[in-house]
């Protein structure tokens, strides 16, 4: 039998004894595959403290993964909207459309972060570390998610309230410079997640990282009959609340197609 031509990947020379790779070599191949996926190493600051999946931000994405995407994805499967199962985060039709269009979805947990020149106002200012968003990704949308609980100790504020989110421009000498972002009405009897559209604010922070001073939440009775109240007084869970109910933001992104290269 004559030898056939030179093959790139499927010509098996019968005179060569092919060997089975060792466990170490197999592990090296696995690491190469993970490197290709952009997962070359564990994230920073997690060696001694494994991150917690029970917090609201990872739980939200796990909910999307299990109920909207599912395992065994197929490019020509039905859109997410038609195969979504009810999860605990009350995904709206707009959310499902964004999930369908997204290549990357990121969540950012709220932090107690001090910004120079900005006075700390407990419960009213939320700050998010969005520095990991690659600038080349195209943002489809972003939302702030707040949990509204009906179980509030010594509740004084009943009825309907308006929660308004502002982007903090500056706070100096007690004077706030704020830019309106979005608002939502909530009644004291409604338990669950509230969403506010913060796309413009997130877009600004991605393009101007030094201008990220967080969001300011202003809560008023819906009829404006009284002064501003603290968010926790109407049942809004802050970043010191239950881990699975803490505020976070979600960003939906379309990939630019540029494959990121990470240093190993």
């Amino acid at each position, binding site marked *: 039998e004559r030898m056939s*031509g030179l093959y790139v990947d*499927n010509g098996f020379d019968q005179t060569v*004894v092919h060997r089975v790779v060792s466990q170490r070599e197999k592990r090296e191949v696995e690491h190469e595959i993970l490197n290709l996926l952009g997962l070359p190493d*564990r994230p920073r600051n997690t060696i001694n403290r494994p991150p917690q999946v029970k917090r609201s931000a990872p739980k939200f*994405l796990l909910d999307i993964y299990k109920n909207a995407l599912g395992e065994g*994805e197929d490019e020509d499967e039905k859109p997410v909207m038609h195969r979504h199962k009810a999860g605990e985060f009350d995904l709206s039709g707009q959310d499902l459309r964004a999930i369908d269009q997204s290549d990357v979805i990121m*969540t950012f947990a709220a932090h107690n972060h001090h910004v120079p020149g900005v006075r700390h106002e407990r419960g009213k200012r939320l700050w998010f570390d969005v520095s*990991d968003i690659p600038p080349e990704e195209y943002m489809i949308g972003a939302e702030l998610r707040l949990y509204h609980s009906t179980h509030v100790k010594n509740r004084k504020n009943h009825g309907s309230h308006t929660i308004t989110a502002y982007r903090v421009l500056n706070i100096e000498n007690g004077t706030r410079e704020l830019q309106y972002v979005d608002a939502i009405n909530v009644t004291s009897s409604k338990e669950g997640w509230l969403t506010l559209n913060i796309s413009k604010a997130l877009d600004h922070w991605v393009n101007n990282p030094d201008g990220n001073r967080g969001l300011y939440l202003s809560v008023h009775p819906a009829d404006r009959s009284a002064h501003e109240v603290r968010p926790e007084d109407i049942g809004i869970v802050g970043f010191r609340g239950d881990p699975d109910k803490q505020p976070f933001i979600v960003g939906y992104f379309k990939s630019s197609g540029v494959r990121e290269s990470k240093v190993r």
Partner: protein
Amino acid sequence: QKRDAKRKKKSDALSYDYRNNPYTDPGAQYSRTCKIQTLYVSFRDLQWQDWIIAPDGYDAYYCSGECNFPLNAHMNATNHAIVQTLVHLVSPGKVPKPCCAPTKLSAISVLYFLDESNVILKKYKNMVVKSCGCH
């Protein structure tokens, strides 16, 4: 690879189980035809499950084997692959056989921590082989 294999063969002829290797086992003709194969990368085995939240591992399917005709019933081949095979039969030393390669690919989504609090769900297009065929 040839040198390495010859050296190995001389020094330690019994270090591999040739019967379990589809390329050296004469009875494994069927397993050498073009078909889908799996290399499962277990995030759990790598002890990365505390930061790669889902899935537990990645089915790194790939296509491997020879494109010999007649093709088995469930293997796709392009018209060009058939032409390529015929030309290969005429000039086996000059023209290679058709290539065993993916015919259908799908995406996977991976959910992992960016740091101790921020999380990302990323879709990787064309990462999972659904079927193989001869091109």
